[in-house]
């Protein structure tokens, strides 16, 4: 009990100290706004994103049941959370701090706004302001395509990006691209995010030792950071650029978790010996009952 009391005290003290540190948001981020209006669809999508990515720490919105981290994750419905402007919220999601992870590479720009749209649904007095169309127009394009190729000599991956701008299909300059390699449980960021040159090309240094499948295939995914402006564009290409890796399936050898025919030998032996041993004696004793019966029959003849 005393231990609990002290650790509680410690938590309170530390969190007081940390919450004293203001989370500074740059002025240009502070005023950023979502390019689209929050509606039921965005809130629904945001809710799904929230429950997979945020609830484990922040808890059920409005229930104040966040996990006890230092500093504590604020409840979504709290004044502290809702006191953020949309832009500040977006900035904090992108940058992260302490235990609060950065979602820069995990969620797309659109998804970030969707989560924010969900968070806002717990604030009845919230009035959304949408980014003015002109602000977005300058950098936007339609029908954006990303093509990935491998530059063998330098072991680099090149992304060529084009899109329809001013009614003309042309290379897209100045767009930030991220490259990911698909792994078992998610996507691994390859190299830094790069910005396309005048020819719409961005080049990523590819590591020499990234494990691929048994023939060396690695599934690559490229996406644009600003998918609000360019639409949710993705390239999804498999290239033979990894180290061929053969991972024997866990069910290949005899193991506790395998099927019966692949049970460990020692287990099969112990089980069989124990069962046959015990039942051997049982059957022997059952035969003895018969022997008693026979011995009884004989006496009458004596």
């Amino acid at each position, binding site marked *: 009990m005393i231990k609990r009391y002290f650790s509680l005290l410690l938590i309170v003290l530390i969190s007081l100290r940390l919450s004293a540190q203001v989370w500074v948001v740059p002025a240009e981020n502070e005023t950023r706004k979502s390019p689209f209006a929050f509606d039921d669809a965005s809130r629904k999508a945001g809710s799904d994103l929230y429950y997979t990515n945020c609830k484990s720490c922040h808890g059920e919105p409005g229930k104040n049941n966040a996990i006890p981290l230092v500093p504590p994750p604020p409840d979504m419905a709290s004044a502290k959370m809702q006191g953020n402007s949309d832009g500040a919220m977006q900035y904090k999601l992108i940058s992260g701090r302490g235990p609060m992870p950065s979602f820069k590479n995990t969620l797309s720009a659109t998804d970030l706004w969707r989560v924010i749209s969900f968070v806002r649904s717990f604030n009845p007095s919230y009035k959304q302001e949408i980014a003015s169309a002109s602000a977005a127009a300058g950098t936007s394009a339609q029908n954006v395509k990303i093509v990935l190729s491998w530059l063998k000599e330098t072991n680099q991956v090149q992304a060529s990006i084009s899109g329809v701008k001013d009614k003309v299909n042309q290379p897209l300059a100045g767009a930030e691209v991220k490259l990911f390699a698909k792994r078992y449980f998610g996507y691994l960021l390859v190299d830094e995010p790069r910005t396309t040159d005048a020819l719409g090309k961005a080049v990523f240094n590819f590591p020499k030792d990234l494990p691929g499948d048994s023939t060396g295939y690695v599934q690559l995914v490229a996406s644009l950071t600003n998918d609000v402006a360019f639409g949710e564009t993705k390239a999804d290409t498999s290239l033979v650029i990894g180290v061929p890796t053969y991972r024997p399936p866990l069910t290949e050898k005899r193991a506790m978790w395998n099927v*019966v025919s692949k049970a460990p030998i020692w287990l099969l032996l112990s*089980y069989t010996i*124990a069962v046959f041993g015990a039942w051997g004696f049982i059957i022997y004793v059952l035969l003895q009952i018969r022997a008693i019966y026979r011995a*009884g029959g004989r006496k009458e003849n004596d």
Partner: protein
Amino acid sequence: MASEVNTDFLHNKKLDSIAADILRPVGITQGFIVWMGFLGISLLACIYAYYIQFDKGLIVTGLRDYISWGMYIANFVFFVATSLVGMLISSVLGLIGLKWVKPIARIAEIIAVAFAAIAGLVIVSDMGRPERLPYVFLYGRIQSPIIWDVTVVTTYLVISTLLYFLPLIPDLAISKGRMGHTPKWLQQTYEILSVKWNHTPKQYQILMKAVRIMLILIIPTAFAIHTVTSWLFAVTLRPGWDSSIFGPYFLTGAFVAGSAAVVILMYFVRVNYKLDKYLTTHHFDMMGKLLVLVSIVYLYFNINEYLVPGFKMKTAEAIHLHDLFVGEYALMFWSVQLLGLVIPIILLLFKFFRKPFPMFVISVFVLVAAWFKRFIIVVPTQDHPFLPIQRVPHEWMVYHPTIVESAITMGTIILAVIIITILVKFFPVIPIWEVAEEQNELDSKTKE
């Protein structure tokens, strides 16, 4: 059990009076009909409850995603535990050569047979699709402790039945001619079951050898049955189950429950069948000492089981222990530990409380507590999974046993009582020939 049997006792006059005493209650009496009628009607209600579960599935129980092992599994562990006493009394104590266990041995075997037989049924009660039971044998994996459990429970049941039946054979033969007051079909049953026994030395020789083999074989089997039952829990990583002493912890707990069950049955037999000449205060005194001994050993394991994780307080263990000691389960936990373990130990240290009636009352407390102890072992652990599920109704995360579930559990207990009643009522409950043999020995000693 001596391997050489001196059959002189067959000619001792006292055999007649001993047999008459023990056989007097055998047969159908009014009390028996009323008692069985009561059990039968109660059982019908429970069978109806099972019909509901069979029809609708386990949704009619309180079992959900978090707590999927509830009352049924606790009940299963209780049944297996209680049945273990057969091994302790007739085998361990018998083989050591303690004479006082002779009249009690059969009572212990009756408990063993009844509880082991129903244990299998209890497991079926936990199955939503009982018709898939054969799949356990068709597709079961030998790597799974559940398969080991099914194997040892079956083996233990067969050995216990043999240990009940084998020493009964001479009694059946002795009783045959003395059963005038019983129905004909019962006499015929005796005739068949006594397998032409006519007390030849050869028969005794075969019988003693067979009994001896079973007495020895039942020791590892009994250890296996309850150790494997404990492994169903201990092979997981979950707080409260992840323990290396779970095998001996379960075993010693089993001896406590079983000894209490034996005392309860002894008391009923002594009082209802007026057999106080054979189940004497000395027997209760000795059982009292046995119960203290096994309880102290169990207490020792309890201290180990809670003190060691309590000292380290690893996060998950700490939550679990908190729940037991001061949290949701505190009332049940402390009632069980105090009323079912600590207080009985203290009381039974005094001779007065080892008299039949106080022993009976204490044993009832111990046995009931033993049931709830199994509940404490099985259920609270599941309250706090390592990977909590999200966005599910609250109802899925808590466990409230339903009436249907309780009735089915009650039904299994009634079934065990029915088996015990039948065995106690239709067959000599105290080994006639062994008591007579001992009497004969005493007589010949006094003559010398």
